[in-house]
C-alpha cells in the first residue's frame, strides 16, 4: 500500500520537573495526509511538536523522518508555524521574510523570487517595504504563513493556524493547506477548532495528559463513536412517543417544524433500523432518515472527560 510514513514517533517521553509532558507517545503520520493533533490545553501537543522541530530533545524514544532518525538537516524539510508566533516589529516585511527563508536554507535570490510569487498571489506586494508594526494582526499572520511554507517543506506543522484570521482569510489559508497536501506535502495540524478538523483532517490523534488516547482516520473514528442514534423526519400525524416502545427504542428528542416532526431515536439491544422503521411506518409518512454521526467536538469532549479522573 503506502510507503514508509513520513513521520514515526516511537515511545516518545518527555518530563519536566514533577510533570510528565509526554508519556510514551507512538504514532505514524502517513505521507501526503493532513494529520490532526488534538488535545486539551496542556496535553503535551506543543511539547511533541517542539521535539519534532528539535527545539527540545525527548528523554526517551525516538522520532523518525522517512524512516531515518531525526537529524539536524531535517529542519530544512519542516515548516513550522508555532501557536505563539510573531515577527520583528521594526523590520520591513520583505526583508524579514527573506531573512527567515534564508535561515531555512534558501539563497537570497531564491527567497526573493519565491516571495514575490507568493506576495503577488496573495495580493500583498504593497506590503513589502512596510514595517511589520504597521500591519494588522491578520496581515501579519498571512506573512507568517508564507514564510512557513516558502521553502516548500515536505512536512508542515501548523499550530492553531487559523487564530487571528477572519472567515475569508481562513478559507483562503484552508484552501492553500489542501493545495499543499495535494502537491505532496504532509500537514500536522494542531487545533482546538473541531469544525476545521472535520473539514480537512484525514487522520487524527487525541492526546491528553501526555498520553495518546485515540488515533485513526477521522471517518473511522466517527463510525466507532456512532451509537446507533438516528434522526427521522416524520409527517402525517403529530409524533407520539408511545408508538415507539421504550426498549429497544429510546426517544432522545423530538421537535416539530411546520407539519414535520424531527425525532432522534436511539436503538438499544438486538433491535435494528428495520425494526424501528417497521414500528413507525403504520402511523407516519417517513420523509427522511439518517444516522446521527457524532461530531468531532463531541467525541473530543466525551473521550477527554472519560479519561480524566473525576476529582473530589
Amino acid at each position: 500500500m503506502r510507503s514508509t510514513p513520513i513521520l514515526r514517533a516511537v515511545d516518545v517521553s518527555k518530563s519536566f520537573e514533577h510533570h510528565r509532558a509526554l508519556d510514551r507517545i507512538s504514532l505514524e503520520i502517513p505521507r501526503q495526509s493532513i494529520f490532526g493533533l488534538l488535545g486539551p490545553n496542556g496535553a503535551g501537543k506543543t511539547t511533541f511538536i517542539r521535539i519534532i522541530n528539535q527545539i527540545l530533545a525527548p528523554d526517551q524514544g525516538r522520532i523518525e523522518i522517512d524512516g531515518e532518525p531525526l537529524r539536524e538537516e531535517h529542519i530544512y524539510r519542516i515548516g513550522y508555524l508555532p501557536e505563539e508566533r510573531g515577527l520583528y516589529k521594526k523590520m520591513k516585511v520583505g526583508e524579514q521574510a527573506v531573512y527567515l527563508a534564508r535561515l531555512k536554507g534558501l539563497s537570497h535570490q531564491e527567497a526573493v523570487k519565491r516571495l514575490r510569487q507568493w506576495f503577488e498571489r496573495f495580493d500583498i506586494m504593497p506590503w513589502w517595504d512596510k514595517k511589520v508594526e504597521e500591519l494588522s494582526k491578520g496581515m501579519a499572520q498571512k506573512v507568517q504563513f508564507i514564510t512557513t511554507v516558502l521553502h516548500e517543506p515536505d512536512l508542515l506543522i501548523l499550530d492553531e493556524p487559523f487564530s487571528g484570521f477572519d472567515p475569508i482569510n481562513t478559507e483562503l489559508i484552508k484552501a492553500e493547506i489542501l493545495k499543499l497536501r495535494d502537491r505532496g506535502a504532509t500537514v500536522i495540524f494542531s487545533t482546538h477548532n473541531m469544525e476545521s478538523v472535520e473539514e480537512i483532517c484525514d487522520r487524527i490523534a487525541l492526546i491528553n495528559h501526555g498520553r495518546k488516547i485515540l488515533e485513526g482516520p477521522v471517518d473511522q473514528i466517527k463510525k466507532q463513536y456512532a451509537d446507533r442514534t438516528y434522526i427521522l423526519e416524520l409527517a402525517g400525524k403529530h409524533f407520539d412517543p408511545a408508538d415507539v416502545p421504550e426498549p429497544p427504542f429510546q426517544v432522545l428528542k423530538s421537535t416539530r417544524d411546520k407539519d414535520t416532526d424531527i425525532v432522534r431515536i436511539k436503538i438499544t439491544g438486538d433491535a435494528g433500523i428495520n425494526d424501528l422503521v417497521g414500528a413507525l411506518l403504520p402511523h407516519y409518512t417517513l420523509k427522511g432518515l439518517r444516522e446521527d454521526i457524532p461530531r468531532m467536538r463531541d467525541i473530543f469532549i466525551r473521550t477527554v472527560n472519560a479519561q480524566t479522573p473525576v476529582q473530589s
Partner: protein
Amino acid sequence: MNKILLIIQREYLTRVKKKSFLILTFLTPLLFAAMMILPAWLAVHNAESNENILVIDRSGLFAGKLNDSDKLHFSVRDISLDKAKENFYKSDYTGILYIPHAPEKENPVLYFKKQPSVVTVQKLETRLENVLREQKLRKALGVSQQQIEQVKADIHIRTVKRDETGGEEAKHNQISMALGMFLSMAVYFFIFMYGVQVMRGVIEEKTNRIVEIIVSSVKPFQLMLGKIIGIALVGLTQLTLWVVLTMIFAGIGQSFLTSRLPQGPDARQLMTQMMQQKVPDSSAVAALAANNAKVGQALEIIGSVLSLPWAKILFGFIFFFLFGYLLYAALFAAIGSAVDTQEDTQQFIFPVTLPLILSIVMMQFFIMNPDSQLAVWMSIFPLTSPIVMMLRIPFGVPWWQIILAAVLLVATFLFMTWLAGKIYRTGILMYGKKASYKELWKWLRY
C-alpha cells in the same frame, strides 16, 4: 555556521541602520572634540586681554613698581579719581585702577569699559601683592632688593621611577591615573551599554513571539551567540567611528583655531619639536629642564606618555574589553530570556552586575594604590578583571598577572556562556511564568 553569520548580519544591520545609532555616532565625537578644543579656544580668546590702565595711586607704594608687560600697560598719573572717571570715555584707557591709601584695608577698585578677563584681574592682584610684599620686606625687615631677588625660587619636582634593573624613567602618575580611569570607564560603559542591548534584543524576540519561529531553524545557542557577536560588532563599529571622527573633528577645530592666531605661537613649534625628539632620554631632558623649566616639563610629560607600557595597554584593552563584554553579554542574554518584560529585569541585573559596580566604586582607591593586594586580586578575578586590570595596566602590571587574568576570563566566559545558554534555551519559550532563582536552577537541569 552559515546561520550564525546570518544572525550576526541581521543583528548588526538592523542596529547600525537605526537613526539613533547614526545620531549617537556623529554627535558624540562632536562632543569629545569640543571637550578637547574648548580649553584651547578659551585659552586663545580669553586668556589675557590687552589693557591700558590708568593707575591712581593714593598709597604711594607703587610708583615705578608697575612695569608694563606685553598685554598690560600702566600709566601712573596723579589726578583725582572723579576727574579720571569723568574723562574715562574720552581717553584711550581701558581701565582705571584706583589704589587707596591703605590697599590692604580698603580694596583697590578697577573701573572698566569692557569686562577684563579673569586672568587679567588675577595677574593684577598678583602684581600688587608682590609689590606690597617686597615693600614690606624692605621697609619692615630691611631686606635689600638684591636679597629679595635671591630669595625667589621656582620649584618643579621630577618624578622618576627606578625599576629593579636600575633603569630610570620619568613618571607622571597623573597620566597613568587618567589613562587607567579612562580605560576602565570605557570598558564599564561598553559592557553595560551593549550588555543591556543584548538583553533588550532577547526580550524583544520573546515579546514579539518570533523566537519559536527562529529556533525551529537554528539552535537557541546559535541565536544567542549570533546576537552577542552582532552587537559586539555594532559596539566596535561605534567605538572606531568615535575615535576616527573625534580625531577628524578635533583636527578641523584645531586648524581653524591656529589659522586664527595672528602671530604663530611658540607652543605649536615647541610641540613639533618635541614630537620629533621621540623618546627623550632622561639626561637630555634634565639638561633641557635646567635651561628651560617649561620645555623640560613638557618634554618629560611626553616622555612618560611614550614610556607607558603601550603593548600591554593595547593588548589588554582589546582583550579585556572584548571578553569582559562577551562574559557579561551571555549573562544579560540569560536574564532577557528569563523575563517577559523589561520591568522584571531589575532583580536579576543587580546581582549580575554587582562585581562591575563594585569595581567602579573601588576605582578611587585602586587608582591611589594600584598594587595593593585587593587591587591585584580583583584584577585577576574574572568578574572584575576587565575593569580593574585596565585600571592597573598603565601603572605597569607584570605579564604573568595579565596572562593569568586573561586565561581565567576566557575560561569563565566559556563556562558562563554554556550556563547562560542552558537558561536561555528554556527561558525563551516560557511565557507568563514569573522566573525566580529557584526556577532558573531548574532550567539548568532540563
